[in-house]
Structure formats: structure tokens, C-alpha cells
């Protein structure tokens, strides 16, 4: 199968998302190897996705959380409760907070390579993943978002997490909360 530049541009987004048929992927890769323009479009588009996908681009205004909590507080005050109700609520809060703490301590590494990591719940610990020496993220093999392809190594997911790598939101998105 031979594809034109126009066909590559039309599918470049699906290509980066891994949403195309294997035969088309092969044809596109063949085209990209010999077409400087399309390679530039691919690299630029990948850069756009990576830069905007960074947590730092999701800034909220100063005091947003505080204002939200206050408005919620104003709206939840006046809920009448019996003494028993309060006891149940207090116990629930302890359980919930405890649950979060347990979740945090079980699911995260204090020395994570990225402070913007998402919780990785359910990644099979024995799953083989790929990391690069200079990166912060671990991937499944073949993920198009592996940047430094020169110093890669394969290791179990549990090992990668222990070393502070965080899961790629693209290829491991299904496991992220």
C-alpha cells in the first residue's frame, strides 16, 4: 500500500493515537521515512500533544480550591443530622481519609521522577514495560511517545514504578484513574 502526503496528514492524528489499521501504519511509516515534510508535520504534532498534555498547562487561578470549598461549605451547611448521623459521618470521614492515605502510600513512590504523575491503579506488576534512561515515563513497547529511543531498557512495571517512573498517559491510559 502506498499513501500520499495528503493521506498521511489526514491520518496523522489517528496514527499518534494508535487508532489505525496495522497495514496503514506500515504504509505511513514507509512514507514518513522518505518524506521530510510529513516527518516535520508528525514531529510538530507530537510536540503539540506532549507540551499541552503536561499538567503544568492545567493551571487554576489562585484561590480556586479555597473558593470552591467555601461555596460547597455554604451549600452543605444546615443539613440537619442526628447525633448518630454525625457519628457515622465522622467514622466515614476517617475511613475515607484513611483510604486515601493508604491509596497514596500504596500507589505512589516518594521519589517519583515527575510530580505530575497520575495514579496507576491496576497495571499488572509483571507487565514488561520500556523506559529510557533520561525519561520519567514508562511505556508499552511500540508506543509512539517514546522520545529517547537510544537508551531504552525493558523491565517489569513494578520495577519501573519502584524506580520512580510514571505510566505514559497515552499507551497506559486505560490503567490511570
Amino acid at each position, binding site marked *: 500500500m502506498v499513501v500520499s502526503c495528503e493521506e498521511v496528514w489526514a491520518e496523522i*492524528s*489517528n496514527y499518534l493515537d494508535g487508532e489505525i489499521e496495522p497495514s496503514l501504519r506500515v504504509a505511513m511509516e514507509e512514507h514518513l521515512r522518505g518524506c521530510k515534510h510529513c516527518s516535520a508535520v508528525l514531529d510538530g504534532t507530537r510536540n503539540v500533544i506532549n*507540551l499541552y498534555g503536561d499538567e*503544568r498547562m492545567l493551571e487554576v487561578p489562585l484561590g480556586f480550591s479555597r473558593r*470552591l470549598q467555601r461555596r*460547597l461549605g455554604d451549600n452543605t451547611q444546615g443539613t440537619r443530622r442526628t447525633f448518630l448521623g454525625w457519628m457515622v459521618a465522622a467514622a466515614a470521614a476517617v475511613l475515607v481519609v484513611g483510604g486515601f492515605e493508604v*491509596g497514596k502510600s500504596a500507589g505512589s513512590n516518594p521519589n517519583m521522577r515527575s510530580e505530575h504523575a497520575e495514579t496507576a491503579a491496576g497495571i499488572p506488576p509483571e507487565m514488561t514495560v520500556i523506559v529510557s534512561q533520561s525519561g520519567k515515563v514508562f511505556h508499552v513497547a511500540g508506543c509512539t511517545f517514546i522520545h529517547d529511543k537510544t537508551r531504552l531498557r525493558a523491565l517489569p512495571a513494578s520495577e519501573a514504578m519502584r524506580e520512580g517512573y510514571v505510566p505514559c498517559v497515552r499507551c497506559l*491510559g486505560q490503567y490511570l484513574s
Partner: protein
Amino acid sequence: MLGEASLLENPDQLNEATLIGRIRDGENELFYELVRPYERRVYAAAFAILRNEADADDVAQEAVLKALKHIRQFRGEAKFSTWLLQITVNEARMRRRKDHSDLMEPIVDRQEEDGSYTPRDFADWREIPSESLERTEVRQMLAEALAQLGQIYREVFVLRDMQHLSIEDTANALGISTASVKTRLLRARLMLRDLLAPGLGGAWSGKASFAKGSKPW
């Protein structure tokens, strides 16, 4: 309700389901715990539509309050986060219509969505390190480029590429088909690439807005 099997697979979902159950039973004071992981997403979704910090702040809070008010209507068929974003998108769209901000949309919004898009700039981008985002001017440049997109592209791009929602969840949150999500996403990504090429991608190609030696990373 969420299936037992999926709850066992995902402890965070269990926490969420438990919280929702308790809030439904009247413990409204737990609601902030439920929405806390998503508050940035809610704000970003509102901002993507309104492009105004004060309005987005207000609408995001209104959306959360509305979600609290209607928590009993949440049946668990969709993820809670998607449901919350749906409410936010609707609130923001309503605010936008009320303020007649639709009339201020960039011209690109009126472009034919299904028409093919030809990338305008073939500057050879090298990888831009994420560390460059530490610099306010880079974040500002990205935000300005995003603001130039039409709303239909901005909405999809923010949910999919900035909030990392799946294509299906993005479609559900916006009330459009997955095919539309893909088409708009392609257009949004390519337009952003073209908009940013002179400042970021073309920085070494001689037509940069950054002087030599003062690249933003």
C-alpha cells in the same frame, strides 16, 4: 451502579463509589473529597469554552454545585468525572450563549469542519523539552495559540489532549460522535502546530520570534 468486578480491580473507583453512596445518603460535606481530583479539569473545561478566567472560575464552581444538587441522578453508567465534565460543558455553553460570546469566536470556528486541512508550515521541529514549560512565556504562548482555535476544536483538544480523556469519554462529555472527536482533534492539533511553528518549531529556521540565543528552553 459500578460492577463489583471493576470495583475490585480499581481501588480508587471503590473509594469514589463509596463516597458517592455516602453523599447520596446525605453526607454532602464529603462532596469536595469526591470532586477534588477533578477540580482542575472542571476549570480547564470551563476555560476552554469561555476563554475568560473570571467566568471560567465562576462557571466551574456553579457546575460543581449543580453536580452536588443532582448527585442522585448520577447512575454510574458513565464515569463520575465524565458526568461532572458534561455538566461543566453545558453550564459553560449556556453562559456563553447568555453573554453572546459566540459572536466573538475566531474565524477558524466557521471553517468547514469536514474539509481536509493542509499543514501550512513545514519547519522541522526538534523535540521541545517539557522543561520549557517552566517558563511563563512558553506557557503563555501555548495558551494564546489555543485561544485562537474555534470553540469546537478547543473543547475537543482540551478534553482529549490536555485532560487525557479517551475519545469515547470526550465524545460523551461534549455530546458529539467519536468520529467528530477524531476529525476535530486532527484539525486542532494541526492548527496548533501551524500557529506555534513560528515561535517554537521555527525557532532555528530563521523566522523565529525569539532572537538567536534566547530560545524559550
